[in-house]
């Protein structure tokens, strides 16, 4: 296991390099000039030129990349074109809400998704099954912004419940009250996917011989499902959970915007639009790192679930 971890951590390096190269080249490829975006619609050419010079945008591309990478190696991620603040300050300052949001949402969606998926697999072709699965599809087809705004409008404003109990402040992050709605918003689609995956995977497993053995032991149906079947059905589900967590990291932008959460997703998107290269680079780098980390976790869970899967 340690060897595996070591190996995977070493593999992160090329991934991170790949990400920087890719980000860098994309930045070159796409039109848009940070100096100009900063200046907006009314900029003078001299001023733009000065800004470009200051930002090093006039250097040849390889020089820019070299400067960037050598900075990173020294632990310096550079500084924002727009605000002049260090990238590390900007990025790490916003990391926690995004990671937390993704984490809690994953937790919620795993919880709801697993239960719904198992119930509907066990009660296959019944009313409950259909209801749950159609519910899941609704959850999936609702865009985040729609759900988020609806939650705010109906729950916060419409009913007044949340404000009445002092539960909710539409913007911000950190207290449990503030977390409820964003987490629901972000977690819904995930629970839908997990529910669907769990159901189909469970259906497959329930047919197996060893489930029969368990029944022959007199194991209660509930235990057959949760102790014998579920674990065997988990492999595709774990993959999806891992992916879910990943895509929540990146996909939190809309939720962050709707709920005014000062997260990394929003920062990166805004920076892409402002062509604030250093921030984008830094942010993507951090995401990539998290991602690889999540993937390692997923692989370890695979292995924990099914010892036969060989990690090396």
């Amino acid at each position, binding site marked *: 296991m340690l060897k595996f971890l070591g190996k995977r951590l070493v593999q992160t390096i090329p991934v991170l390099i*790949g990400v920087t190269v890719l980000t860098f080249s994309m930045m070159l490829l796409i039109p848009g000039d940070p100096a100009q975006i900063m200046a907006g619609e009314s900029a003078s050419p001299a001023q733009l030129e000065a800004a470009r010079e200051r930002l090093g945008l006039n250097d040849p591309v390889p020089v820019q990349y070299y400067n960037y990478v050598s900075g990173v190696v020294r632990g310096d991620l550079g500084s924002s074109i727009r605000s002049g603040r260090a990238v590390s300050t900007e990025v790490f300052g916003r990391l926690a809400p995004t990671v937390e949001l993704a984490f809690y949402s994953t937790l919620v969606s795993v919880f709801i998704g697993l239960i719904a998926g198992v119930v509907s697999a066990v009660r296959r072709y019944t009313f409950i099954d259909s209801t749950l699965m159609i519910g899941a599809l609704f959850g999936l087809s609702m865009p985040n912004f729609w759900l988020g705004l609806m939650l705010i409008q109906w729950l916060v404003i419409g009913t007044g419940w949340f404000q009445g109990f002092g539960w909710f402040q539409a913007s911000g992050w950190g207290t449990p009250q503030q977390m409820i709605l964003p987490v629901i918003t972000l977690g819904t689609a995930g629970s839908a*996917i997990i529910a669907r995956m769990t159901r189909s995977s469970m259906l497959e497993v329930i047919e197996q011989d060893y489930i029969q053995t368990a029944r022959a032991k007199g194991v209660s149906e509930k235990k057959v499902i949760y102790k014998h079947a579920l674990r065997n059905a988990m492999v595709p589900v774990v993959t999806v959970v891992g992916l879910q967590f990943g895509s929540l990291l990146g996909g939190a932008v809309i939720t962050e915007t709707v709920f005014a959460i000062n997260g990394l997703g929003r920062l990166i*998107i805004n920076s892409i639009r402002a062509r604030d290269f250093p921030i984008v680079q830094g942010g993507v780098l951090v995401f990539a790192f998290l991602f*690889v980390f999540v993937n390692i976790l997923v692989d370890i869970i695979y292995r924990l679930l099914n010892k036969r899967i060989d990690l090396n």
Partner: protein
Amino acid sequence: MQEEVNLNSGSPTGQEPVNHNIVRFQDFWKKFYRNKSALIGGTLIILLILTALIGPYLTPYSPNAQNYDARLVGPSLEHWFGTDNFGRDIFSRIIHGMSITLRVGFSSVLIGMTAGVSLGIISGYFGGWVDTIIMRLMDILLAFPGILLALAIVSVLGGGMNNVIISVAIFSVPVFARISRGSTLEVRQLEYIEAVKALGASDFRIIVMHVLPNILSPIIVQATLNIATSVLTASGLSFLGMGAQPPTPEWGAMLSDGRNYMWDAPHVSTIPGLAIVVVVLAFNIFGDGLRDALDPKTKN
């Protein structure tokens, strides 16, 4: 103890239809046909496709005809689904937008799935450095902000419907790759794979004939689900100049255009949302049926 002669023996006689291909297809079809969900899903999909093809000739209004005197009108007899902020008839727009929405959802999933599943199986089946390289590439792709990628595609290939399909497909490649890899890892170690290996089957054959059919069910689920996400993602890219441009009645775009009127006129965004649900529902029901029909163990 009974000692009667066989009336109805356990082993059936050898005289039955000769053409097994037909039999096999009939089997599948029978199962599929008897499978209620597949039937409902299939019928729904056909209906949707027919509506997409014929519907536009039958709508009461032109999809882009603006009428400032009837803005944001709720559903009524005159406008079944109400009107939007330009007073356009949402019902007509939904019908006209159906073909383009179906196309985006379906093609991008198909492309993404084909590429992703191939990569995932190869990765899981061969393992080793092939796996490492493919999966690390997928990691990069996953960690990489989609907008950047889409922007790059626009700037290299230009906007347009096909490129949005490609972009959305690319986003979903790693998802399919990871899922199929995970399941492949599991199937790979089963004895029947070893058994065909012992027969001298090539890796390609094993992958296509033995691994793929056995990992199909999570893939079907993911694919049918992904149609919804793809439609939404595609509309999310339209601001980059990708995909459907206004006033094209693409559902995802309609849904997000309704964002400003969610308080006063929630139908503007809700109705396209429901339309997407119907499509996704149809594909999911169909996918479930397909899964069952493909699984020899489920009888109905």
